[in-house]
């Protein structure tokens, strides 16, 4: 299952200018400058590296570290 450490690494690696270790788990991505394009990159990496597919209808709920981890838990990815 996708761990918090793995998710933070994806964010740091894929989003230019963002250090994911400084993002509180509950902070919504848009509040720290992660826009919809960066969000798409994060979700693509989650799919490619951990097999976690997020359908378009579920994208909005995967808007923070906490919410993505919760989503992954529910999906058992």
């Amino acid at each position: 299952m996708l761990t918090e450490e793995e998710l933070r690494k994806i964010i740091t690696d894929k989003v230019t200018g963002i250090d994911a270790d400084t993002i509180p788990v509950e902070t919504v991505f848009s509040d720290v400058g992660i826009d919809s394009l960066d969000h798409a990159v994060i979700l693509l990496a989650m799919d490619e590296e951990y097999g976690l597919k997020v359908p378009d209808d579920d994208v909005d709920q995967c808007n923070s570290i906490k919410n993505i981890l919760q989503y992954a838990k529910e999906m058992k990815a």
Partner: protein
Amino acid sequence: MIGIEKITYALGDVRINNYDRATALGATDDLIKNKIGIESVRRKMADQDTSDIALQAAQKIFDSSSLELKDIECLIVITQNPDGFGLPHTSAVLHGKLDLDESVACFDISLGCSGYVYGLSVITSFMNSNNMTCGLLISADPYSKILDENDRNTAMIFGDAATATLISEQCIWSIGKFDFGTAGKKGDALRISDERKLVMNGRAVFNFSATEVPKSIQKTLELNNMLMEDVDQIILHQGSRFIVETIAKRLDEHDRIKFYAMDYGNTVSSSIPIILADQTSSRNRTIMLSGFGVGLSWATTIISK
């Protein structure tokens, strides 16, 4: 052997500065400069149709060379926004406006952003199988006809332009082998709504581009028995700065892949030949071309001097 002799292009006469409408469309200057990457887009004049902007590009071929109208044996137009409702085909309309000989073969190709690379294969195959030595490949797909100017996802990206590519035996570029593909189940990512406006699922287009284009580039290298170091430049369809730079990052090819369309926008099937037109006298001798988008589809090839 036939190949590319010359390329000319015409950008839409009207320029729209995206920064001037950033607030109205809910965009930031940072988004425009660093993500979309398109600072201004072009639009054709309101009274122009597709064949008119195509005519502007084609006329430049004749104005800048010794080519004569009677030399042309075939004329192919790539468009999904034809004159009127597509009947008659835009290539026939353009044939009339150019006053070409009645012996000239004309037809349209319905493809979007992959259209130019597909078109190179179609026109050279058609010419070879019919013993032709002089043909024109036109791209002209003015999306202003279908854009919702209030939709940030599309209005700030797409621009109007047309290109003309002369295919002849006096070629500067020879054309290699192609990789083609289609992901038809994902075709809804770029479609026309019931209101006849373009609708784009940006995430789906991004995922498609980021995953399929690198694979197509690798496959095209193999088809042409080349390694990446044999290629001087990779001209990608200019979807947006974000898509182009994402593909460059995934291939770790930041020197060979650049974004060029900041001053005119994503011009669909014209995006690749606009850039290629300026490479005729460059030192780059081997260039990979990869078009991808509507369909969803892709086409990639390698051309060499």
